[in-house]
């Protein structure tokens, strides 16, 4: 008799607690990031940034007078798991908005779910260009696309590095292939010859075969699209292999972790990044200080992306004045957000623009900003 009664009381209490938590006291926002799997490291950074944004906002009174409750789910960068996470967040946690899902393939799988339940959905990371072309009115992107990054940087790279023959190496997924294609197109437009295009799989550890081909390709520069783990292994082996050419790339390259992992081999390489922790500006200094205090290391590209995405979403909900989806979408459209890395606005299709991106070079274990450029709005159709 007794255990049963106890169970009932506990059940009732739990029900009450969860009811009150959602109905009155807080504003739930769902976050989907890969917390396990091959990009777990970067997904965790994005989740950290998001957490920091929420903590700061709540310390200043929250949104619409309520504290924001961020509920994080692991999407593992996989479409299936991310959709499950979205369903759970929408149905069980009754979130008013979604942020995520890191990998473009995962994000594109979550988009129809968000549309079905009419939940505003913002990604701060996924860069596959077609996402914002899908005509999903609930979807926004506060990140650069591969093409936007390519066009912003190709001139800088040609001017600063003076390259004539370039080899391209990318991780074998939609992002890696998209980046290689975008940069190849843009650089060819500036008269740079393509001498090699190769891809490798996530989690590869031995790049000697690829590097053998690179050494024999006659390139004077190599473009690499890779994330921290693969990128550091590749660059280390490139230096071991005695290849001496300009290395420049996209991905989370200019982070303290990348430099720690890669060691001396990181010296001199260039990275085209939408964010680096030593961008000039007082706003960025404050962000870097807060982030470093909270997580013991300076923020990288993904930490900033998570931070910006949550701030944009929370500001949109505040502007909307309610948790109504249509009002939040309108709020998102009016975004004019002063980020640590410039001003974010959205095009009619939900593509973010106006923020800064930087070409950095790693020197003496630090990132030197060589040049910055603003990501312009895409011309087509806007």
């Amino acid at each position, binding site marked *: 008799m007794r255990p049963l009664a106890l169970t009932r009381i506990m059940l009732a209490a739990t029900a009450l607690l969860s009811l009150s938590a959602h109905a009155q006291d807080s504003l739930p926002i769902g976050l989907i990031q890969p917390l396990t799997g091959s990009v777990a490291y970067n997904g965790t950074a994005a989740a950290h940034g998001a957490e920091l944004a929420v903590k700061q906002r709540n310390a200043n009174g929250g949104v619409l007078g309520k504290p924001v409750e961020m509920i994080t789910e692991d999407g593992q960068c996989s479409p299936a798991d991310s959709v499950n996470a979205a369903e759970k967040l929408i149905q069980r946690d009754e979130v008013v908005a979604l942020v995520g899902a890191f990998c473009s393939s995962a994000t594109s799988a979550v988009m129809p779910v968000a549309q079905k339940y009419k939940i505003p959905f913002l990604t701060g990371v996924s860069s596959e260009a077609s996402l914002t072309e899908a005509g999903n009115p609930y979807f926004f992107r506060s990140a650069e696309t591969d093409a936007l990054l390519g066009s912003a940087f190709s001139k800088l790279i040609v001017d600063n590095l003076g390259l004539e023959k370039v080899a391209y190496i990318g991780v074998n997924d939609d992002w890696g292939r998209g980046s290689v294609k975008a940069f190849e197109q843009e650089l060819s437009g500036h008269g740079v010859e393509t001498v090699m295009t190769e891809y490798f799989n996530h989690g590869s*550890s031995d790049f*000697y075969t690829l590097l053998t081909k690179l050494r024999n390709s006659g390139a004077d520069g190599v473009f690499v699209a890779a994330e921290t783990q693969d990128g550091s292994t590749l660059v280390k082996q490139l230096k071991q292999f005695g290849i001496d050419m300009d290395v420049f790339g996209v991905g989370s390259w200019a982070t303290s972790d990348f430099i720690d992992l890669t060691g001396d081999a990181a010296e001199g390489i260039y990275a085209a990044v939408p964010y680096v922790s030593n961008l000039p500006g007082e706003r960025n200094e404050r962000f870097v200080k807060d982030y470093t205090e909270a997580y013991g290391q300076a923020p990288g590209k993904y930490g900033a992306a998570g931070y910006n995405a949550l701030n944009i979403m929370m500001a949109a909900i505040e502007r909307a004045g309610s948790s109504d989806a249509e009002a939040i979408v309108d709020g998102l459209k009016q975004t004019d957000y002063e980020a640590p890395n410039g001003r974010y606005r959205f095009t009619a299709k939900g593509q973010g623009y106006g923020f800064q991106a930087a070409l950095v070079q790693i020197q003496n274990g630090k990132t030197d900003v060589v040049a910055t450029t603003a990501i312009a709005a895409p011309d087509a159709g806007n």
Partner: protein
Amino acid sequence: MDMLLQFVANGLVSGSFYALSALGLTLIFGLMRVVNFAHGEFYMLGGVLGWFVTTYLGLNFFVGLVVVVVAMAAFGWLVDRFLIERVRDQGEEPSILLTIGLSIFLTNSALLVVGTAPLNIAGAVPNAPVFLGPVVLTQMRLFAVAACAVLILAAYLLIRHTRLGRAMRATFQDPMAARLAGIKTAYVYASTFALGTVLAASSGMLLGSIYSVQVSGGGLISLKAFVVVILGGMGSFAGAIVGGLILGLAEALWGGYVSSGTVDVIGFLIVILTLIFKPYGLFSTQVERA
């Protein structure tokens, strides 16, 4: 020509790494008939422990390796005594489910403890390039290949020339007869499992010092080890070595002359071809076991 030599050198190096990690699996999967999907996680644990003892305890590489070997032998022994023991002789499915569960548990526990960042192990020798004619290798790679050879030889001698080795061979030929002859088969199983775990873990630590240790990277390691074991023949020592080298070479040549984005296809192509044309593998021990 220079390119071909370099590809062959690359293939032989990665092939010898495959061989060492597959050797552990050929004992556990080939002889004990435990379809061990946690093999890649044992490899990963070896790397993580190796990183811990060299970075935090400040041990040098060799002392660290000994510590890892002892710790992982104990771990393998306990896994066998407390987990595998319960599903022994119940067919393959329970052990598949058990080891899949174990692999998920180990990966996520490691993620919880050391986090998602890749870990670097300080190597035993500097990672400086070595030029052999047109071929580039590094000292660390040559060292790792030598270490693989030593470990493989040690395992071979252990199985061929010690009492424990004889007991192992007897047990896997006929457990009933082995028990009647007074062999404590429970200990033999546990020792074999421990040996397999140690081989996986030491290759994890060796390779961790060349590449880096990735906590979530166990799955691919398991798959490649299965490829080598199936190609070489279940439970065969020579099979694991030759199979590993063939896989390494095939991947290097495919990556070099076709495309490096599709190299992981090669392993599975090899498995399909093996199963069609030589279903017991190149060096089958089928007859011995029958």
